[in-house]
Every structure is written in structure tokens, then in C-alpha cells.
């Protein structure tokens, strides 16, 4: 019986060498039910009124009118874009330089690379709680030095808190991007540097004319992740500031959470999440078009 089945399979395989598509089903099912359906669901829910408990009612454009008529929506949107840009501008040069630096062969650089990794082990909640206390004007790190400019109400002052958020985000995510650049730099063929050294190019020239162009793909990839990821700095900001003081750090994702799970206005919150999705997909699409990141091929093909 089994022998028969085996030969049957062999015969079949001569005609159809590919695997049985049924193997795709579990992955597709999980992905469709828990990622794609909610994605579409956000769109549907944005045309409803729902408090999270009672049955939902379709109310047309009410939620959209609510969201688009709320000045906070645009403040949050602007803040999200501002954080996106500033976080990119701060993180990219820092992680690029650090990554290239720790890609070097010296032992101490390797050690630094190992230690740089540590923030990646902490959860967003842990990072946020650590910095909430570290930035405390009375008992935080600043208080250790007795320097007036360090002893400020970092998290309570609406004009300072933005920079604190950028700092904490950078602290948390620069290590990841450093790692990308380290890996990218190590992938650059050594011959390029040898040739440049023979031609008399110094360290700065080598960086500009070899390292940077060779890291092009890494830069694009890291930037894509940074930009798309910046829509979701929610976790750390949520625990660090809760959107405050006032609404100084109410990112769009935070505004959505607060609208949905604190004001129980799930309709408007869904409209906000549709805005988030549209921005996210547009950014990712623009960056992939620009970079060709989607052309996923084996790294070894074409080598």
C-alpha cells in the first residue's frame, strides 16, 4: 500500500515537481485572519459608531467628520511626521558611523559592538520606565552632576519633552541600525579598500568613495525600517509620557489608542488607524519603488 502510494507520488512528481500548495494554508490563514482582516476591518469600522461593548452601528461618515474636524488629529499627524524626520536625521548618521566603526577588526571595537547591543534586549516598557526615572529632575542622572542645565523638568516641560522622546527612541533603536551597518560594512569586499589604499586614498576618502556608496542598500533598508517603524514608536512613548505633558507627545498612534481605549470612540479611532495604514503603506511603497528593495533575490545570485 505504501509502496504503491510512493510510486504514485513519484509518477505525479514527474508531472508536477512543485510542492503541494496546501502547505501554504496555515501561514496564509494566520496572516489573513489576524493581519489582513483587521487591516480591512479598520476601514470598515471607521464608518461605524462603537463604544467597544455594545453592538456597533453603521453611521456613515460620522467618525470621519469627527476625526477630520478635530484639530488634535492634525497636531498628532504633524508631530508624527516631525518625529519621523528628526528621529531619522539623528539616528542615521550616528548608527552609520558607529556601524562602520565597530565593523573594524580591533578587539576593543568588537567589544564595543557587543556592549552597544544591550538596549536591544530591553523591552520598550523597560526602556521607558528606566528613562522616566533617569530623567527625573530630582533623583535622575542629571541630579548627580549638580549642573543647572541638566536639572530640568525634562518630561514635564512641553518644549523639552520632544527632545527627550527623540533621545530615548534613538537610545533604543540606534543599536539595531548600528548592527545593520556593521553587517553591511563587513560585506564590502576588502579588495576595494586595498585598491584605494594603493591609490593613496586616506580614511575619509575611503569612507566617502567606497564605504558610503557600497552601503547604499543598507542605508535604504535601514531608512525604510526607521521611517515605517516610526509610526509605531507608540510603546515607548506611551509608557514614558502617556502623550503628555498636555498633549505634547500625542503621536498619531497614541491619539488613536486614547480615542479608542480611553474615550471608547472606536469609530473615530478606526478612522485614525486608516490614516496610519495609508501613511505606512505609502511610505513603504515609495521607498521600495525608490530602492528596488522588493526585488528579493538570493544574496548569492549574481555574485
Amino acid at each position: 500500500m505504501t509502496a504503491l502510494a510512493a510510486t504514485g507520488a513519484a509518477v505525479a512528481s514527474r508531472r508536477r515537481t512543485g510542492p503541494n500548495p496546501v502547505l501554504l494554508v496555515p501561514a496564509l490563514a494566520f496572516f489573513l485572519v489576524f493581519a489582513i482582516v483587521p487591516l480591512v476591518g479598520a476601514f470598515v469600522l471607521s464608518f461605524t459608531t462603537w463604544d467597544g461593548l455594545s453592538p456597533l452601528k453603521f453611521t456613515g461618515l460620522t467618525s470621519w467628520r469627527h476625526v477630520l474636524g478635530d484639530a488634535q488629529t492634525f497636531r498628532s499627524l504633524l508631530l508624527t511626521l516631525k518625529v519621523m524626520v528628526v528621529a531619522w536625521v539623528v539616528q542615521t548618521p550616528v548608527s552609520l558611523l558607529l556601524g562602520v566603526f565597530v565593523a573594524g577588526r580591533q578587539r576593543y571595537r568588537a567589544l564595543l559592538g557587543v556592549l552597544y547591543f544591550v538596549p536591544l534586549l530591553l523591552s520598550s516598557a523597560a526602556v521607558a520606565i528606566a528613562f522616566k526615572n533617569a530623567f527625573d529632575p530630582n533623583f535622575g542622572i542629571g541630579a548627580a552632576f549638580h549642573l543647572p542645565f541638566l536639572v530640568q523638568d525634562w518630561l514635564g516641560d512641553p518644549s523639552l519633552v520632544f527632545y527627550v522622546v527623540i533621545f530615548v527612541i534613538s537610545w533604543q533603536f540606534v543599536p539595531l541600525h548600528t548592527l545593520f551597518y556593521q553587517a553591511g560594512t563587513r560585506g564590502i569586499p576588502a579588495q576595494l579598500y586595498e585598491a584605494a589604499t594603493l591609490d593613496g586614498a586616506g580614511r575619509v576618502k575611503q569612507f566617502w568613495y567606497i564605504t558610503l556608496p557600497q552601503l547604499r542598500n543598507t542605508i535604504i533598508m535601514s531608512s525604510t525600517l526607521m521611517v515605517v517603524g516610526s509610526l509605531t514608536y507608540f510603546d515607548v512613548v506611551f509608557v514614558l509620557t502617556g502623550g503628555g505633558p498636555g498633549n505634547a507627545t500625542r503621536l498619531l498612534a497614541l491619539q488613536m489608542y486614547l480615542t479608542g481605549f480611553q474615550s471608547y470612540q472606536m469609530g473615530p479611532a478606526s478612522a485614525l488607524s486608516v490614516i496610519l495604514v495609508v501613511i505606512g503603506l505609502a511610505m513603504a511603497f515609495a521607498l521600495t519603488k525608490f530602492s528596488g528593495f522588493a526585488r528579493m533575490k538570493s544574496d548569492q545570485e549574481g555574485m
Partner: protein
Amino acid sequence: MTATTVSAPTSTAPRGAAAPAVRRRRSSRRERPNVLGAIGGWLWLAVIIVPVYYVVISSLRNQAGFFAQNPLAPPTNPTLDNYRLVLQNNFFMFFRNSLLITVCSVALIAACGLMAAYVVVRGQGWLARRSFQLFLLGIAIPTHATIIPLYYLITRLHMYDSFLALILPTVGFAIPITVLILSNFIRDIPAELFESMRLDGAGDWRLLWSLVVPLARPALVTVAIYNALHVWNGFLFPLILTQSERFRVLPMALWAFQGEFTVNVPAVLAAVVLSTLPLLAAYVFGRRYLVSGLTAGVGK
């Protein structure tokens, strides 16, 4: 770190990794030391280490000491009372919950992802191609944007406030990147191996188990560690999909401790340290895999 780990993450690539390393080392003798780079490097180390030091040192103070002493000076009377307090407040249960959902999610992700990646790479049909494109698109979905419909879905499925509520969406959102990493790897397995095994009468399960799993083991480890890190540290799904203490995971527990202990900052920071220890241990023993896990999916 030099020779050994340079070749380790790229060990998937059989191209001579050792030869350029040797050559590079020889040419390095002539280089001047990079002073500016070193200053920047050590400065960043300070930026990383000082907050960590602050957290650890503060967690060892008693409350009075925390309010009275210099925040960066070593504690005058170091104490482990804070750790005792945290451990007495159900820490082990939260730890177990985190472990449970991490192990279950990662096992499901790896199994589903592997099967899907195998079809995506070896399949020729319409479904295989379209699925891959769909997964690529999936990477760009901001998870946070789906929390409200997800909450709706989970409550309708009567799974709100349960482990399943955490595991199932986690798996759903981890599938795209997992399939991408695995399929990039499986693509490097020579097609002839598949074909010759097929001719010998091997079915899909045989191929998966005897060919793909052994050869893609490094990628599987990578995927497992990458996802484990994310699930272990995940905050969003527990925040919106659970509420009772029974199903609380570590990141939520930290947040809750912060509310419960309020002014007892050393205890909150002790909880932060304790929640990070498992991953720190994992990092010490499996750094190579963790690093290759995070940089996988990154084009070189």
C-alpha cells in the same frame, strides 16, 4: 569577534570569508589609529551604559537611600529587598506567562513559516507567487493600526483576556518577515537536491524534514530568536487584548508595578532588571544567533 564571528553570521555563504580577513589584517598595519572614531565610540558607550548603570545601582538602594544619595554614586547600604519584593509580587507567574506565549508563538511561527517558505520558493503556481507578494506587502503593515479591529475580532471570537488572544495575532503578524527570511535562505539550496529527492519518491514532508530543515537550520534558529525577542518584549497586544493578572506578561507587569509601587522607584527598577535578565543570559550564550537574527533579511 574578529575572525570567528565575521565568518559566523555569513557562514551561510560559502564564499571564502577567511581569505579577505587575512588580507585585510595585513594591510591594517599601515593604518594610523582612528582617534576621532574612538572618541565617538567610547562616548556612545557612555550613552548606553550610564542609564543601565543608573537602573542597576538604583535597584540596589533602599528607598531612603534613593531619595538621599547621589544618583550615580554606589549605594551606601546595598540591599536586595527590592528584588525580594518584586519576586513576592507574582513575578514568577508573569515570567511563566511570558515564557509560555513566547514558546508557543515561536513554535507556530517557525512551523507555518517554514512550510510557506518552502512552497513560495519551490512552487511554480499562481498561489505561490501571489502569496509571496502578499507577504511582502504584509511587512509594511503598521501593527498598531490594526489594534481596534483586532480587539473587535478577538472579543467576537470570545478570546479576549486569554493566552490565545496573545498568541494568534502575534503569529499572524510574524508570518511575513519569517517567510521572507526563510525563503531567502531556502532559495540557496540547490534545486538539484530537491529534484533528485523527488525522483527518489520523496513527498513534501520528506523533503521538508530531511532536506529543508537540516539545511535551513541556521535560518530557523535566526527566525526563532528574532521572533522570541519580539514576543518576549511585546507590549501592544498584551495591552489591548488582556486585562487580568492571570494573563499578564512581563512588559505589562513592569507597567503595572510602576502603578503599584509608585514612589518605590528602586523596586520598579529591580523589576526592570529582573525582566531583562533572561534575555541578557540568552545574549551571553547565543550572541551570534541573536545578532544574525536581527540582521537577517537585511540585504548585504
